[in-house]
């Protein structure tokens, strides 16, 4: 910018100096050289004239003597040819000298004029002598050599001329001397003038030289400044992180661009490259066309630059560029466009390109981190109420369940019935996870397990199953495993935190003590039932007996079974308070869970004072779900109908909720009992109660312990 301010000033000074030197050159030519030339010519003419005048100074006297000689020779009848010849030479010479003097500056002098007049008169008297060509003598025998009549006339003319010339010669010499004097003065003056001219010429030349020197200096400075400016521009273009270039009216890149451009676009040559070529393959065709239109709009005089900035389609764009490893990587670029105006139109569009990949990725990472942080906080908040050891226990079991799910998936299958059988097995495992998660009030796990079950439920309804249909299960399983992993990590952190807060030994001791903390605690069951009842708009109380005697080996299987039965009882059995009161029952439903041991084994009784099971309702549901035909249902005894509740996928509920409706719960109970080599029976009275009795053989404790 500073450079741009100084430049016009320097240009003005440079222009002035150029004009001055031109004026000086013209002055030197007009005032020194041309007058000098003229003066030199005049001086040369004067010198020539002066030389002639000097040379002819003695001519008049020579003429007088030559005429005297002619006269005397004529008198003595001597040979006069030579005299006449000399006379002609002198006259011609004097003629020429006089003509030269007249042609010189001295020609206008009165002395010269008078000399010319005098000479003219002398010339007239001399003419008969000069022009004489006859024979002056004649030889006779009588008188010897005598003058011819022409000779006599010549003699007379010679006498006449002698008298005239002798009389006028001093005047003529005087006039010539004065003319000579004048010419000498003239020459001297001319020489002085020429000297002065030469001097001024030298001075003007010196000034011209000085100006030229100054101009050179100025030019040198200007060039230095321009070079410096160019170097600075080059340095800027080399150093900036942004890619800069100019687009001309044809949307081609100009001759200058910043080095960063090469790094950004992984290419070297840009000059003359069309903007479309630059971005071809990097952005979608649609984006490219929109960008071209945008630049066209920007070049239009009418559009306001600031206003249309908002619609820049390349404000931030994802591109695929070659990476150093000859592959391709995704980068994020920001393009900015500015008009560059000329005197009367928009000359260029300045394009700025910035690689913002790092910022975009950082922002994304930050966002993910925030989301993850927020997710982790939610996770933390959702598990803070759970004892870490119980949680650890749960996670281990859940992982084992999901491992079974994956093992089930892994069994090779090609046929529909094989896939259906997998669904039933997976359902059971998931239901166990969901049940325990609900008991521990781990909502996030419960929700995911429920979503998994939704997919299973949807698959079960399909007429034909293939492995393709199982792809969503894979994703759900992966998601659930990832979630459990996150919980595990969080649990570890919690444990570490606790260990740090208490002494390691006490913590470890406490941990060991609580490790065997039973699932079947009245408090946990009451809490679970409470939450469940609230969600269903019901009220329930738990009455337990002997649960503290459940051996550790049976804690988990019986715990899972109780959870499923409890869920079933609250959702399907216990009525809402209003219904109960209308039926003369207490507003709060009661669930009794009792465990007992004997020499034959152990038993668990689970009873609710709810609506009981109605065989017809079970039959209708079985028909609705396609498990039985109407005819088969009609022939079914009530006792047989009750067994339907242990069928995989059987539920009287139309819509599944997180709490029930999958038809998995009682199936899972039956499976658990089977695995423990036990039996389960059901007794019910509609409107009054439902009771399940689980009987397990004595040997089961050790088996379950091993399992």
């Amino acid at each position: 910018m500073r450079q741009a301010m100084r430049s016009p000033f320097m240009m003005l000074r440079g222009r002035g100096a150029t004009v001055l030197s031109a004026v000086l050159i013209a002055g030197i030519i007009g005032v020194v050289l041309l007058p000098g030339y003229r003066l030199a010519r005049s001086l040369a003419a004067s010198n020539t004239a002066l030389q002639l005048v000097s040379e002819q100074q003695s001519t008049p006297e020579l003429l007088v003597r030559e005429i005297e000689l002619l006269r005397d020779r004529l008198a003595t009848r001597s040979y006069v040819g030579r005299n006449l010849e000399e006379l002609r030479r002198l006259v011609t010479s004097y003629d020429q000298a006089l003509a030269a003097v007249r042609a010189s500056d001295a020609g206008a002098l009165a002395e010269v004029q008078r000399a010319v007049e005098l000479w003219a008169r002398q010339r007239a008297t001399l003419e008969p002598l000069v022009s004489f060509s006859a024979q002056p003598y004649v030889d006779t025998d009588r008188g010897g050599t005598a003058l011819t009549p022409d000779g006599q006339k010549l003699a007379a003319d010679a006498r006449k001329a002698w008298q005239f010339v002798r009389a006028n010669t001093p005047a003529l010499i005087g006039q010539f001397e004065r003319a000579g004097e004048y010419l000498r003065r003239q020459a001297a003056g001319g020489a002085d003038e020429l000297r002065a001219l030469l001097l001024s010429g030298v001075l003007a030349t010196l000034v011209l030289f000085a100006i030229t020197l100054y101009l050179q200096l100025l030019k040198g400075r200007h060039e230095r400044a321009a070079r410096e400016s160019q170097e600075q521009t080059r340095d800027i273009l080399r150093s900036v992180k942004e890619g800069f270039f100019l687009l001309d009216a044809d949307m081609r890149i100009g001759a200058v661009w910043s080095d960063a451009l090469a790094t950004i676009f992984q290419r070297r040559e840009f000059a003359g490259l069309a903007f479309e070529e630059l971005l071809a393959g990097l952005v979608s065709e649609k984006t490219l066309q929109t960008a071209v239109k945008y630049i066209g709009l920007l070049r239009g005089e009418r559009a306001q630059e600031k206003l249309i900035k908002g619609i820049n389609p390349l404000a931030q764009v994802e591109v695929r560029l070659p990476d150093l490893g000859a592959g391709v990587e995704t980068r994020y670029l920001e393009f900015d466009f500015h008009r560059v105006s000329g005197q009367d139109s928009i000359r260029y569009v300045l394009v700025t390109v910035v690689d913002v990949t790092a910022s975009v990725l950082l922002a994304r990472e930050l966002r993910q981190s925030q989301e993850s942080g927020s997710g982790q906080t939610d996770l933390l908040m959702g598990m803070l109420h759970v004892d870490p050891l119980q949680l650890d226990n749960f996670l281990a079991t859940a992982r084992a369940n999901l491992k079974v799910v994956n093992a089930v998936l892994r069994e090779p299958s090609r046929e529909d019935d094989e896939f259906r059988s997998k669904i039933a097995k997976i359902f059971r495992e998931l239901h166990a996870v969901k049940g325990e998660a609900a008991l521990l009030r781990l909502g996030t796990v419960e929700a995911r397990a429920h979503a998994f079950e939704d997919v299973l439920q949807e698959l079960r309804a399909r007429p034909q199953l293939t492995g393709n249909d199982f792809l969503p299960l894979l994703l759900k399983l992966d998601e659930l495993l990832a979630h459990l992993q996150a919980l595990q990590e969080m649990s570890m952190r919690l444990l570490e935190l606790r260990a740090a807060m208490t002494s390691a030994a006490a913590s470890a001791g406490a941990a060991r003590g609580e490790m065997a903390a039973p699932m079947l605690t009245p408090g946990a069951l009451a809490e679970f039932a409470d939450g469940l009842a609230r969600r269903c708009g019901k009220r329930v109380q738990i009455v337990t007996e002997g649960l503290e005697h459940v051996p550790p080996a049976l804690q988990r299987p019986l715990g899972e079974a109780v959870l499923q039965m409890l869920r079933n009882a609250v959702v399907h059995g216990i009525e809402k308070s209003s219904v109960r009161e209308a039926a003369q029952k207490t507003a709060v439903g009661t669930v009794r869970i009792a465990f007992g041991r004997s020499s034959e084994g152990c038993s668990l009784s689970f009873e609710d004072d709810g609506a009981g099971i109605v065989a017809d309702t079970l039959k209708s549901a079985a028909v609705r779900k396609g498990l039985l035909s109407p005819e088969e249902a009609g022939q079914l005894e009530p006792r047989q109908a009750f067994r339907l509740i242990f069928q995989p996928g059987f539920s009287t509920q139309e819509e599944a909720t997180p709490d029930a409706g999958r038809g998995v719960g009682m199936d899972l109970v039956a499976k658990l009992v089977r695995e423990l080599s036990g039996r389960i029976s059901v007794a019910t009275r509609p409107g009054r109660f439902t009771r399940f009795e689980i009987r397990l053989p004595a040997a089961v404790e050790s088996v379950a312990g091993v399992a």
Partner: protein
Amino acid sequence: MLDERELRTFVDGTTNFFEVAAQQPATVGSPYLVTDDRPGVHEYTGIIRVSGRRSGLVYFTAPKTLLTVLLMKMQENDFSHQTMCDAVGEVANTISGNARRDYGKDFVISVPTVVSGGSEEFELPGDTRPYVIPINWRSHAAKLVVCLR
């Protein structure tokens, strides 16, 4: 974590290959996760590496018997090692083409590479559970492994 559409792109790419090249569709077996081990390979494996929104690799691995029958179905008389490699590479290429078509903007996919002889000397991305999708064609079994994060 992958979404279902992305996973299907790779699976469809594989089954489409058999449909088009051998005029006999392949079916998808029961898919599963690999949690503790490597997914395993057959004799010929075509691998594509993915970067961009997801990173990792996807490979199709098949036994020689499957590829022999496949080449026969494709009217090919040359059953050399190189032709087997070309065939498995072609499957990987079709998978890659399918993914490019659907996720060209998000996925950057490498040129397929082929390993043979049951070699599993290629890096799987850490912190992922590879998805194994059994591909059944006629009486043969191959598998597609998707291991992306």
